């Protein structure tokens, strides 16, 4: 089956990002496809490459990046939620006249339409949040 996942909470703040990640891994292991993961609200913080947790903790952002790279998952960060929280890619940082960008590999910034399209394209849409 084809899945779109929606992640509404940030890493190290609520379990839902971890739950979504474990669900994605289990679905892929069973031969299903993760068509898209849409990060919304505080969930956009899953896409920062500047997070540095203690060495004995998991690096949630990198887990997502690695999973996307291994399985060709389209990981989309909501643009309005990202701008509010200071999550920028090169183009957005330039457009806003900012001196830095921080988006992690495998993530891209786009709009809510990508969530709708993901739901239309997928057999199942699962929401993970608080």
């Amino acid at each position, binding site marked *: *089956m084809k*899945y779109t996942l929606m992640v*509404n909470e940030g890493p190290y703040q609520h*379990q*839902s990002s971890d*739950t979504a990640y*474990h*669900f994605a*891994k*289990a*679905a892929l*292991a*069973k031969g*299903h496809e993760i068509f898209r993961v849409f990060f919304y609200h505080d969930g956009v913080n899953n896409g920062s490459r500047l997070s540095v947790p203690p060495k004995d903790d998991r690096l949630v952002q990198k887990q997502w990046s690695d999973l996307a790279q291994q399985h060709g998952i389209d990981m989309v960060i909501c643009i309005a939620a990202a701008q509010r929280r200071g999550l920028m890619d090169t183009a957005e940082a330039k457009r806003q006249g900012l001196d830095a960008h921080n988006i992690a590999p495998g993530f891209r910034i786009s709009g809510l339409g990508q969530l709708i399209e993901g739901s239309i394209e997928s057999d*199942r*849409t*699962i*929401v*993970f*949040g*608080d």
Partner: protein
Amino acid sequence: MSMLHIVNKSPFERNALASCLSHASKGDAVLLIEDAVLGAVAGSQVAHLLLSALATQAIYVLSEDLAARGMEPNRLVKGLQVVDYSGFVDLTVQHDKNQSWL
């Protein structure tokens, strides 16, 4: 046509489980994940809700979230079924709709 209801809130903190059970239809399934697994223990204040729902719905509990909270599967309300993440995925396949009770 059936729905998988996913509940992730502790029933001792929020009303999501009771709301979900009062809306779920016959043949639907309910999956308790994250803090919602806290309500699954036999003899808890919400055990009667689960027991009466079991007459018309299957209720599942995510094993990884039980383990993370130090809860043993053999101390749950009778009739609840324990599934792992792989089982979670299967439930989303078996039910054509799903609702997260956030």
